[in-house]
């Protein structure tokens, strides 16, 4: 006897707003005349994001629901709301970057360098589809960490990824790289999601349900050594680790970040990472929480490998975006430490709040950094090669100063947000009082000392070496871009000096933990 499903529309409202706006956007593409599209899309996108954010706030104020919505398949709880808020803010600033259409190809279908591309350029054509695509991706990002069963999670994963695959291929310059990034991301993404799906299937086989709570109950009953469970978890893990770019599944990240249009890179590096970590937490804490003794050691290895690979490989990078990609890999490693710091409820909420705070600080700084990257141009597009950044500190001290500041935040120097992010996660890990985890923290700080080297290297280039004669030009930023840079710089300072308000939010969000 099947009861009619009940849907908590209010709880899901932010999702609905985003997806609705996306669909409207598609319709606009279909029916609105070309010259109007941009004028419609941008406000539509931004407003929908603002609206969604407002709704998130409203819900938080109205009281966080304690039961999952939509027949237990979407969990809108404290952490979710916090993550939603974060993602929406990050997406908003990223969209402001996307708004700079000079980043995107006029006509993706046209072969690079062909006559039709010339034509498109002269016509000033533009892919305003970018906006609905971005909105779909953002919707996916919102759903991904909120999904309370593996099927929804899979769907969300795809909804998040598919638009991104496309967006990666739309860079205006260095088309070949862009397309290559796109195809690589697509193939590897599809590959990994196949793993995710098979893992889901096996867990379904183990538990008889894909509901996270159901799985954890099954664990409580059956214990954690069945083959199905083990292999299932492993494959599921592969899919998730791939998304956060943990070693050995990190290979796609540098290539994609480098090839994709910088605003999209910003969106992926901030929003996707946040969403993915939300999902990781949900799967490993809600579904496999009773099994932490089995997966923690594995994750230990993954985290260690990730932070080392990220820090080491970044040292010799020459492409600024690629370097930032490796740095984000290293940060993923640091974040994983927090995922392992599970214990009693108090400990969990401590670790969770730490992670949430880290995600906020890292995301906002990342967007700022990439925003700066968009501004430093060569005749052939962005000055991607580091050597071109030499002496930027003299040409435009302010911009270079801001970038240096972001880099220091990545390095985790005190009085920047990055420091407290690291501190929050590391301290929660040490608070667990387990030698093996503290050891990992020590490894982490050593790694971040190594990581500091390549951040500092860029600063050295910008400030301590003299500019080359035909150095890159710094374009005067559009209002949007400068807004992005300003906001993220402000946030990086504010969170570095007075982190308490955001910490409070994170703690309040984490207090309830995830609903079962």
């Amino acid at each position, binding site marked *: 006897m099947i009861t009619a499903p009940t849907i908590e529309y209010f709880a899901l409202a932010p999702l609905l707003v985003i997806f609705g706006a996306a669909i409207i956007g598609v319709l606009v593409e279909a029916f609105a005349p070309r010259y109007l599209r941009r004028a419609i899309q941008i406000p539509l996108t931004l407003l929908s994001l603002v609206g969604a954010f407002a709704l998130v706030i409203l819900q938080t104020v109205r009281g966080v629901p304690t039961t999952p919505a939509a027949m237990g398949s979407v969990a809108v709880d404290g952490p979710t709301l916090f993550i939603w808020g974060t993602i929406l803010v990050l997406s908003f600033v990223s969209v402001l970057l996307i708004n700079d259409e000079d980043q995107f190809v006029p006509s993706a279908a046209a072969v690079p360098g062909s006559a039709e591309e010339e034509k498109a350029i002269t016509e000033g054509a533009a892919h305003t589809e970018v906006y609905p695509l971005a909105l779909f991706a953002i919707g996916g990002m919102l759903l991904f960490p909120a999904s309370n069963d593996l099927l929804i999670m899979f769907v969300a994963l795809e909804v998040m990824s598919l638009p991104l695959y496309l967006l990666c291929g739309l860079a205006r310059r260095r088309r070949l790289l862009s397309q290559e990034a796109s195809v690589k991301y697509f193939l590897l993404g599809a590959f990994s999601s196949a793993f995710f799906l098979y893992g889901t299937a096996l867990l379904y086989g183990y538990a008889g349900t894909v509901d996270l709570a159901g799985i954890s109950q099954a664990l409580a009953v059956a214990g954690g050594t069945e083959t199905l469970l083990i292999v299932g978890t492993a494959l599921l893990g592969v899919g998730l680790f791939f998304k956060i770019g943990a070693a050995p599944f990190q290979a796609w990240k540098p290539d994609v970040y480098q090839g994709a249009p910088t605003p999209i890179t910003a969106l992926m590096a901030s929003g996707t990472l946040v969403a993915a970590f939300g999902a990781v937490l949900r799967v490993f804490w809600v579904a496999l929480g009773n099994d932490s003794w089995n997966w923690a050691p594995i994750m230990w290895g993954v985290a260690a490998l990730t932070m080392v690979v990220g820090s080491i490989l970044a040292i010799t990078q020459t492409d600024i975006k690629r370097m930032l990609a490796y740095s984000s890999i290293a940060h993923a490693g640091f974040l994983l430490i927090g995922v392992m710091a599970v214990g009693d409820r108090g400990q969990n909420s401590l670790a969770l*709040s730490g992670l949430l705070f880290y995600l906020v600080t890292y995301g906002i700084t990342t967007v700022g950094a990439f925003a700066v990257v968009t501004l430093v141009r060569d005749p052939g597009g962005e000055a991607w090669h580091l050597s071109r950044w030499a002496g930027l*500190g*003299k040409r435009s*001290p302010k911009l270079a100063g801001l970038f240096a500041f972001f880099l*220091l935040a990545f*390095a985790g*120097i*005190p*009085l920047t947000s990055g*420091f*407290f992010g690291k*501190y*929050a996660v*590391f*301290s929660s890990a*040490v*608070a667990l*009082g387990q030698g093996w985890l*503290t050891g990992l*923290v*020590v490894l982490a*700080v*050593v790694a*971040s*000392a190594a990581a*500091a*080297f390549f951040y*500092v*290297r860029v*600063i*050295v280039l910008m*400030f*301590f*070496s003299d500019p080359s004669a035909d150095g890159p030009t710094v374009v005067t930023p559009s209002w949007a871009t400068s807004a992005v840079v300003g906001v993220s710089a402000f946030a990086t300072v504010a969170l570095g000096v007075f*982190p*308490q308000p955001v*910490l*409070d939010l994170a*703690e309040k969000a984490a207090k309830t933990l995830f609903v079962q």
Partner: protein
Amino acid sequence: MTAIPWLSILMGVSVLGALGVSFLKNDKLAKQATLGVSLLVLVLAVVMTVGFSPNGDRFQYAETYDWIPSFGVHYAVAVDGVALVLILLSAVLVPIVVLASWHDAEQGKRSVRTYFALLLVLEAMMIGVFAATDVFLFYVFFEAMLIPMYFMIGSYGGAQRSYAAVKFLLYSLFGGLLMLVAVIALYNVADKNSFLFPDLIGAVTDPTTQKWLFLGFFIAFAIKAPLWPVHTWLPDAAAQAPAGAAVLLVGVLDKVGTYGMLRFCLELFPDAAKWATPVVIALSVIGIVYGAIVAIGQTDIKRLIAYTSISHFGFITMGVFAMTTTAASGATLYMVNHGFSTGVLFLVAGFLIYRRGSQFIADYGGVQKVAPLLAGAFLIAGLSGLSLPGLSTFVSEFMVLLGTYQRYAVPAIIGTTGVILAAIYILWMYQRTMNGPTAESVAEMKDLNGRERWVVAPLIALIVVLGFFPKPLLDVINPAVKESLVNVKVTDPAPVVAVKEGQ
């Protein structure tokens, strides 16, 4: 105890000054503004010192506000005698450095006002790091200090500047990050939900934990100090930094290391400190002799001075870990005196190098003939470097050795050989640069001008006065040091033969 938040005012003035200076368009104005601000800070610091009552409670001018409650972090500042004199040291040195580096920043055709703004930021942080009574706050300043210094070395330094700057930053950062883990662990182990120094005293009881945490702190401080064998960043940094920055680097920043050992390593982890003492004393002694010997072999004036400092830091750490009142007070006094003496040594060397444009001893000779004042200043600075009695450095070195001998005779004796080596490295450098027939390359050298005299005179005056009358400083230092040693639970060894009651 006044209600006036002196320490916040000191920092605030510097920071605001830095902001103001960075917005000034006119370089000359910027310099004068910087000088004004730093002098104002000095005056305030002096006023504060006058108000300090040495035999009152240990921490005075305390301010405590919650900063990050969820981490138990406070904005908590206060000074005891030790911190006070070190703050005073910074406050004295900064205006002098400003005056001394009047033209330094212009050489690289780089932004002058940035340099001076950085100076003021650095001053604020130096005050903060010594004033912090919240371990976390201390750590924040400890790390944040690196950045302005990093830029001062990197943008305004010599040929190898970026190498030196990066080496300096990464080396210190590495130590600092290890310390970060220790700080976190300390917080969790102590489980006081507070980072306030007084709360944390005696909070860690388990010996093994103490040892680990001690190591975390100590390595960071040893790198900062720097202690042999983690010293090699200093010669590069000091040799590449502009003279002014070098003064603050060696004169004040490095003191944070030795200060931290005294304040945190000893008081927070007394048992671990005692456990580590033999090793630390050994390292210090090695540092004293080794630094001196390597200094003798240097061909670059600034590197030579840097190595002499390594030798001197050996004395300081030895004094700190000897754990006798005399030695510890001596070590603290040493921090101050070394700041002055190395300061004037670096500055005069800077004037010399600025004139000739070379750091190599071989490029000089017979300067005394053409620039007697310069040579005289250099000689006095050098003599204070070899701690000649009558100059302040002697008092501290004597106290350190005397106090150390009471507990560790042999190290003290070996350390005393440093006295002979010091004579060699200083006088040999002086002979090679200032004596003998005048090299034609320096024949045209100008003597100290008015500004430079104003730089050198106050320091030399201080060195001489404190050399004969160190009591004022010691009266401030002694009670604080005694308190620390009480927390460490050590008592001075009694003399073998009891003499009739004198002191």
